[in-house]
Structures are given as C-alpha cells and as structure tokens.
C-alpha cells in the first residue's frame, strides 16, 4: 500500500523527471529556464542579467508557532521526554532523525542541521522578531528583517521581479511574524502574499485598455517630471522609481500563476498549500527573486503535540525533500539557500494535554544549498533535550551563518543618520562548521 500522501511514484513521472534532468544537463541552464514557463513573459535578457547579477537566493521555510525539534531533527528515543515517535537512520552514518522524516533522512548528506539553538526568547512575537532579524529590535532602533536585507543585498534596482516575497496564508501568528524593512525603506519591503498566490493589484482592471493604461502612466510621469524639476528629492525619486516598476511587475504576472508549472511538477510537490507555495518559491527564485519566505502556520502544539506533528511533519518532510531534489535537478542548489526554522522549539516536558509548550533553550534548524556544508550536524543537547551541551548558537549566529553562506559579509554596515549599523551585532559570528 502506498502510504505516501504525495503522488510521485508513478513511472510516467519518472520518465518526465529523467527526461527533464537529462535535458537540463545536456543543454544547460538556458533550457532550465525555458521549461519553467515562468520566464516566458519576462524580458529574457534582463532576467538572465538578473540571474548573473548576484545569482544567489534564499528560501525561508518559516515554521510559525514553533515546530518541535524532538519530532524532527533532534529526537530523544527511549526517554520520557522523547515522546512516542521512533527514530530512523539517515544517509549520514550514526545520525538519526525522527521517523516522521523518512525523505529527509535519505537526503541528510545534503543538509546541515543545527541542534544547539539557544535563543532565549520563548514568546511568539518577540521570538519571531528576533529570529527574523538575528537580534532583538531596540526600543529606538528597529532592524530590517532577513528578507529586506537580502532583497537589498541580492536584488537589482531595476528588477522586474519583486525583491522579497512572503507567503503567510494562515492568520494565526501573522502579526508576530511580521516582515519589516525598517530603516532600509519601503523599496525593500516584502510583497506579502497572504490571500492566494497572486499579488494584489498586479493585473490591469478590465475597464482600461492596455494602451490607455500605458499612456496614462506616461502622462503621469511627464507631469511629475515637470513638477520635480528644480525640486527633486530622494523621496520624490522613489515615487518615480515605484511607478517605473509597475509595468515590469505586471508583466511578471505569469510568475505568480502556478498553472504555468507542468502538472507533473505540481503533483510532485503535492496538493497542500504549503507545498504549492514552496513550488512557487522555487519558481520565483528561478526568475531572480532574491528572497522568498514560505510560512507554514501553526505549529503551536500546546495540546496533542504528537497528533499535531504526525499531521504536519510528513508534509514538511515531503516539501523539503521535493524542494531539495527540484533545486538540485535544476542546478540551482549552489545558488539557492533553503533554511527551515521558526521562532522557537518545544519543551521536552510533555504536558497533561499531551502537548509541548514554548521552548527556546535547546532547539534545531535545518539548512541546505548555497554555501552550506553537506551532511553536517552541529551542536548537541543533553539526553533529555533540556539543555545544549555542545556548540550553543543564538539567533545572531544563525543569521550570520545565513548571510555568510550566500556570500554577504555579516560585518557589513548600514548607516542610519550617522550611526553605523552592522548587519549583525558586534561579536556575533557565523557557525563555520556548517559553512561549505
């Protein structure tokens, strides 16, 4: 009996995948782009230039609400804290993960896991804010989140695709997992796709013809340019730049259309929303979007932790594995970094509702792709999972690791007024052991 909920085992699909793979290898990256359907609508020259530009992208699988490290990357079999799930061996000899992740177990040699996150904040709002920024906001200085920084560092000013896309379809925790460009400004704000996958206002209203839409814009630009003469400011330029991007973004409308993906690819990812959004993330990264967050809410299993994880971890396992294979087969794994974590992990102690509560003292994150060591397991927790006993890493270290992995110097500084603001706080370092 096939207990795999996702339809990927069909021989027909195998043929497609093989054909696809050999085609890609034989013809090179041009063919890869050609098969996506995403980029046909875009100007291919500028798109390729975008890809050549920074070439790097990041996909954050944001496990909102806090997934359990014990039911994923750091199981404690045989302990009362370990819960009922068994463990399985992985493709790294001696390393076991939860039995709920058989697909990732087979691919562990391509992945790095940090088992020693100790981040010190077990509140949804404050924890999420910190994990998305690598540090806590200060009362008077709010920091840009990871996506805003990467959009700035990896994106191109005239890009026809967005610099930062964030999916967050469930409502719980959306407020606490808020994205923010802070002092970087709205140019680097996330395009938030919370309802459906199509961005708001990207399609022309039916009542206006395409020609009128364009000429109306030209009229606006002309009147505005006359006004701006002798009084142009940085903010005024940003308004002109925003309107200048409108038609480019509108032409990328098909980028947001999942129907453009071949059916067999969609089948491989599977029918769930998280899976479809992960596919969209791959599609966007392929078209040059530097940062995509795919949020899967809501892991907050205060009651029935094991039923919750029995429900949600197989989906995570499947989505991560499919994304890994897909990026690998498209030759995008060296340029795309995928990271999976949320605001914290969950308590080793099991409460009377058979739940696990918030826990930031000893938890895990997984990373693969660009700049990440293959098959590294970093850090260690004690036998019950209560404390980190080796390689303690905080939010800053994880943030610095992500920046380093895609070739951004974490010590780089921005300026707010005259204040220099390094990308990570002074004294915070990347975890070299999991960098390739």
């Amino acid at each position, binding site marked *: 009996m096939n207990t795999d909920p996702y339809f990927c085992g069909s021989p027909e699909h195998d043929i497609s995948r093989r054909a696809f793979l050999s085609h890609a290898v034989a013809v090179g990256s041009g063919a890869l782009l050609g098969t996506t359907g995403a980029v046909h609508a875009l100007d291919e020259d500028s798109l390729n230039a975008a890809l050549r530009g920074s070439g790097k992208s990041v996909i954050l699988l944001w496990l909102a*609400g806090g997934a359990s490290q014990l039911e994923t990357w750091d199981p404690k079999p045989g302990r009362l804290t370990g819960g*009922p799930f068994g463990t399985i061996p992985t493709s790294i000899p001696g390393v076991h993960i939860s039995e709920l992740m058989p697909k990732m177990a087979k691919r562990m040699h391509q992945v790095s896991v940090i088992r020693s996150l100790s981040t010190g904040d077990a509140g949804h709002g404050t924890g999420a804010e910190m994990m998305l920024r690598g540090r806590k906001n200060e009362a008077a200085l709010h920091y840009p989140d990871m996506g805003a920084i990467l959009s700035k560092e990896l994106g191109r000013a005239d890009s026809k695709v967005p610099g930062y896309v964030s999916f967050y379809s*469930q*409502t719980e925790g959306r407020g606490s997992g808020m994205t923010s460009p802070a002092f970087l400004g709205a140019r680097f704000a996330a395009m938030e796709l919370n309802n459906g996958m199509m961005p708001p206002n990207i399609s022309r209203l039916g009542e206006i013809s395409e020609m009128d839409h364009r000429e109306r814009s030209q009229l606006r630009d002309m009147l505005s340019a006359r006004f701006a003469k002798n009084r142009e400011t940085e903010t005024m330029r940003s308004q002109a730049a925003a309107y200048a991007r409108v038609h480019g973004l509108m032409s990328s409308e098909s980028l947001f259309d999942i129907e453009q993906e071949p059916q067999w690819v969609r089948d491989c990812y599977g029918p769930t929303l998280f899976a479809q959004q992960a596919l969209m993330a791959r599609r966007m990264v392929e078209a040059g979007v530097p940062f995509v967050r795919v949020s899967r*809410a809501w892991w*907050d299993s205060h009651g029935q932790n094991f039923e919750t994880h*029995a*429900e949600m971890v197989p989906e995570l396992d499947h989505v991560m594995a499919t994304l890994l294979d897909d990026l690998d087969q498209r030759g995008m794994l060296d340029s795309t970094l995928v990271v999976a974590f949320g605001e914290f992990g969950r308590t080793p102690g099991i409460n009377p509702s058979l739940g696990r509560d918030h826990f930031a003292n000893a938890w895990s994150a997984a990373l693969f792709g660009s700049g990440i060591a293959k098959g590294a397991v970093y850090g260690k927790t004690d036998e019950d999972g209560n404390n980190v006993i080796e390689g303690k890493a905080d939010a800053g270290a994880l943030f610095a690791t992500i920046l380093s992995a895609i070739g951004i110097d974490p010590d780089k500084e921005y300026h707010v007024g005259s204040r220099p603001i390094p990308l990570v706080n002074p004294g915070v370092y990347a975890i070299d052991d999991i960098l390739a």
Partner: protein
Amino acid sequence: MSTTQRTFQIKAGKKLSRKDIVFSLVPGSGEESVYFGSSDGSVYLADFSAEKIEPVALTGDHRHTSYVTGLARTGKGRLVSGSYDRRLIWWDTETGKSIRVVEAAHGKWIRKVKASPDGKIIASVADDMVCRIWDAETATLLSVWKGHEEMTPHHYPSMLFTCEFSPDGAYLATADKVGLIVLWDVASGKMVKTFEAPIMYTWDPNQRRHSIGGVRSLAFSPDGKMLAVGGMGKVGNIDHLEGKARVSLFHLEKGEVLAEIETGDIKGLVQRLAFHPRGEWLLASGGDNKGFAVLIDPQAGKTLLEEKNPPFHVHDFMLNSAANGFIAAGHNQIAICGIEG
C-alpha cells in the same frame, strides 16, 4: 427514583502518582487489580487494594519501545498489548511474561486493542487506517478491514483512534480522525453501515490549518441498541484542547442521531466511554490540561453530572463490578473514583 432525579457525585479516592503517562487499563486478577500500559513502553500489574501500591512491570523476551495504548484480556490467562511501536505482544498472566510478539502488526501507530466478548478474537486499530482481526490464542492474522481513508480531505494523514465490540460480539465499530464511524459485521467482515460526527474533526482551515480532534472513544449500550461516540466539539484555538467535551448518541439500527451532548464548561477530549451495566447512565471521561468525568442520561440525552474529577487527564478507565466506582488512568496518575448517588 428515575435516573434524572438522582444527584450524583464523583470523588477521587486512593491514587498512585507516576512519572509516566498511563494510556490503557484492563482488569487484573481481583476487583482492584489492574494491568496498565505506560508511556515508558511497559505493561504493569498493580493491586489497588494493597496498602502500598507497587506496580510490577511484566517481563520477558519481548517489550514495547513506545507508548502502550491498547490492552485486552482474552480470558484464557492471556493479555494482549498494542503500542505506537506497531507491535502486538501476547502475555501470560500466570507467569507475567511475554510469550509472543507480532512485529509490524500495523504500518503505523497502534491506537487500540480490544478483545471480543467471548475472548476468541482480538481487534487492533492503527493510523495505517486498517482494523486487523487476530486469533486471540494463536496470534494468527484472520482478517484486515479497510473502511477509513488514509488521508483527510485536506491531504494530511488521518488517524484511526478507536474500536469497540458490541456486547453480543456481533459488531465492531471503528472510528477515525475526520469523524467517520464504521460498523462491521464481525462474522462476515463486511461493512454494515457508517455514522458521522464531523464536528469532532476540528479542522481549522484559516487560522492554523491543522486539526487535533477526532473520535476518541466508542461504547455500545448494554442492550446493543445505541452507539455512543466521544470526542471534542468545535474549537476556537486548536493549540489547546479547549473545545467542549462532546458525545453523540446514535441509534444503531436506524443510523440516526439520538442526541448530541456537549458539556457546559468542561473542555477536552472524551477519551473513554462506558455504559452502566443496566444502561442507567453513560460515563465519559478524558481531559484537557486537567481531567473530567461526565455522567450522561442516555435516554434523555442530557448530562446528569459534569465533574472536574479525576483531577488529571484520563486516557482510560474501567468500571467496577458494582458500577459504583471506577479506576481511572492517565497523566502521571491512576486513581480510584467513587460514583455516589
């Protein structure tokens, strides 16, 4: 005096505190002797009539490596345990030793193990969504019954939480996460009919895209005319077991709903249901962060008593022979409770 005019009370008495979580409970040798299955993977025998209760773990060549969620007595000195480790283990109650194991009895977690009233067969249900029927003596697999979808309508793995034989042994009912209850003809292995309690699924498509409910308990009335189905009602926030405890009563023959019973302020899952031997009441017990017991008048379809006792989340209980008390087992505790009234 009719049941509805009586005033009931449930009081927790003698108790045994534990570090583990107790998931299953069946009678031992005497009135207050029990076998129980633990989160530590062991099956214990404990005598609650003793001054100092000292549970003894059963031993032998076979043991479980995960939560022991199903226990069944077959009457011939045999005890069968089922676990999330997918194993079924047969025990000799005389020697207290394991005698036989069926490895990979199911493809996923075993949720419940029940013996038929005549003790001849054993039914096990698991998250592989099948019910397996075993020869209670030889452990031979007799039949595999498939009537529950493996995936929920929202493409997540479903769960087959519980099963129960009818008092005459003619039927077996099985119930799953999405609220589907299947009635099987035991002799033929055919599906007789289905009942539905979809509210117990608790799927939240918008806020959290996740569910935690399911039908957790079943009970046939002593006359075999009624089927009680236990779980939890609608939940606003499925991070917690905060839906109202809920029982649906079905007319077995007609298949129709006789009553939907939702508690006043008691919240959590109904983990176990049992009818009074003469059908005077129906006892429902379970919990959220704490425990509860609810007495229901099955004729009136109303609760007689809603009590936040036992004080711990109850996973299983067994009525005593006089039906004036029960032993409840659950989170870090086993306790004797009296039903007064």
